[in-house]
């Protein structure tokens, strides 16, 4: 017989819960963001001595203060969302495509190559060449790890990670090849005088086309993942490969097909970054967005609208923190630090959505 006193209850027990209402879920996440912003405020306060309210007012003005700042924030948000949209199907399938950085760069390289070498083509043809080229390049870059994963179960996390650096070195190679002026080790603005291969200016902004394209992609991806057979197969493979195999899904083929799509969209992001935004190519064309976008896609649980929202938050932080940094003559890596902190908090908050904590002596019964 058990003696009740000897059976010591643990101080804290955890149980899974799936019954949290939508409102509560949103509240938990909002609380995480607010908490993170408070921590960031304290951090900035202790470094710069700026009053936290001023900090956030400055950040808002830095991100949305003028028309051009708004567009710059939108540009940043769209770049991030585009890559996240591209990554979503791969990650939903639990294929760890850490290689977005490289896929974006390779798309950018092809775009820049077209802008430099095919500048005499009529504009529509040039755009077609850039778009098709970058999509194919991105897809090929993603296809390699997918093939090996499907055939021999080669670890895709590390394979795609290494492909990033192959792409970065390839970019350095082309930058050295195309450098202009000679000896600067940068490509400079491509076709500055003719603006060949640049996205047209619509609604007073160069980034309008980017925004429209990305929004369109986001909607299409939502439909693809939610309402098509392909999307369903991706979800099943992601939940359990064995189940998928049992259900007669050709797992290898789904993997390859999905990675082709994922890489293609990332390549397209490179196209937009070069032809639609910077008009140049360098190793920082992707600028770490390939990594940040992974977290965006993951936190959004691959939902398009949420991805756009999180991208907006991060773009705001980046441009806002940049403003603070330039005001205080500090460097703008501050934004990365702040983004890191926010990500930690949002990541951690998922725990409180998924688990119920039961403390010792609590009256509540576990279900």
């Amino acid at each position, binding site marked *: 017989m058990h003696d009740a006193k000897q059976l010591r209850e643990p101080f804290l027990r955890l149980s899974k819960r799936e019954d949290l209402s939508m409102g509560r879920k949103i509240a938990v996440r909002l609380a995480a963001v607010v908490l993170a912003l408070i921590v960031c405020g304290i951090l900035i306060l202790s470094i710069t001595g700026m009053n936290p309210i001023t900090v956030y007012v400055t950040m808002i003005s830095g991100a949305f203060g003028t028309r051009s700042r708004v567009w710059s924030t939108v540009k940043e948000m769209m770049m991030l969302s585009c890559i996240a949209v591209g990554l979503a199907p791969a990650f939903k399938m639990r294929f760890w495509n850490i290689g977005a950085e490289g896929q974006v760069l390779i798309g950018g390289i092809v775009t820049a190559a077209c802008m430099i070498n095919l500048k005499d083509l009529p504009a529509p043809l040039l755009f077609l060449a850039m778009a098709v080229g970058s999509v194919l390049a991105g897809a090929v870059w993603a296809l390699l790890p997918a093939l090996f994963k499907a055939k021999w179960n080669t670890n895709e*996390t590390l394979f795609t*990670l290494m492909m990033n650096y*192959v792409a970065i070195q390839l970019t350095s190679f082309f930058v050295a*090849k195309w450098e202009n002026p000679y000896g600067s080790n940068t490509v400079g603005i491509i076709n500055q005088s003719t603006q060949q291969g640049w996205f047209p200016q619509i609604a007073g902004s160069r980034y309008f086309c980017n925004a429209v394209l990305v929004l369109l992609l986001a909607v299409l991806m939502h439909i693809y993942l939610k309402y098509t057979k392909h999307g369903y197969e991706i979800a099943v493979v992601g939940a359990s490969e064995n189940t998928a195999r049992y259900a007669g899904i050709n797992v290898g083929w789904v993997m390859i097909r999905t990675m082709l799509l994922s890489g293609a969209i990332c390549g397209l992001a490179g196209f937009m970054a070069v032809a639609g935004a910077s008009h140049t190519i360098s190793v920082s064309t992707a600028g770490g967005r390939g*990594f940040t976008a992974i977290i965006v896609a993951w936190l959004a649980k691959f939902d398009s609208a949420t991805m756009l929202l999180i991208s907006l938050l991060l773009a705001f932080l980046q441009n806002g923190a940049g403003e603070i940094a330039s005001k205080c003559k500090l460097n703008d890596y501050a934004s990365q630090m702040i*983004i890191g902190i926010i990500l930690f908090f949002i990541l951690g908050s*998922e*725990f409180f959505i998924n688990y119920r904590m039961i403390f010792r002596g609590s009256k509540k019964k576990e279900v």
Partner: protein
Amino acid sequence: MQGLVSLFQAAVFFGTVIMFGCIGEILTEKAGNLNLGVPGIMYLGGISSLTAVFIYEGSTPEPNPVICVLLAMVAAFLGGALGGLIYAVLTISLRTNQNVTGLALSIFGSGVANFFGGSLNTLAGRFEQIAVPVTSAAFRKTPPFLSGLGIVGKLFFSYGFMVYLAIILAVICQYFLHHTRGGLNLRTVGENPQAADAAGIDVTKNKYLAICLGAGISGFGGAYYVMDYIKGTWANDGSIEKLGWLAVALVIFTAWRPKAAIWGAYLFGVLYWMYLYIPGLTRASQEIFKMLPYVVTILVLVITSLKNSREKQPPASLGLSYFREER
């Protein structure tokens, strides 16, 4: 001959940075956690050691080299371990996804390090290039007498103490993992946490310790880079990040054996610097050569998966979180 000697030296310098990162990551991965935050951890280690010493050297007229070195090492370890602790709390206690958390840590670490690295002077009210000459000299001090032994001295004894420390750590780690009870427990946790738990091994404690200790060791890599490799300055050029990913690659290359990290790291160094010793390369084609370490890692990855050999596999539960409550 002269060229070969200097290639070997360059490889050792380069290899030591990633060897520290790699040993730390092996320890972490043996506990079943794939930490993609190595670049961030190395950044944190580097900047903590630089900040600590910068403050110390700036506050005393005659800094003591021994204190400088101790301070730098302790700060690097703590900085790295702090990064590891954030990762551990999130992945073990809060059960977040390991890859995503690691990437967030990389973003955070590189942000913190580059921010302070670039602003330390402004914050301290000094405006010259950031430098910690005394500490850097102490780090780069070669062993007395031995370094004068002609070519042998040049090959083996022309380095600062951290080069030797890395080798010693690799050997200790190898011994710990494969010849002690603690190492066996740790490997069990990484292979099969359910079994470890049933056998009475504290999975959570083992994971926490391995991750924090591993991160501290990876942090040394950052300190070595800052103090020795770039001679006590700071550069916002993202090199530590590149090296951090190479350290992750090296873990695969060594098939999770710390002792293999010794030659593996130097081999990566040779591959990386080889372009300097191949005549007739243009600046553009040099960049192609710098791909080698990454391409070699991909090849190793592919070959090991083709061969599917039993002893060269990652820990079985690598990347999976362990929830005792899950059935």
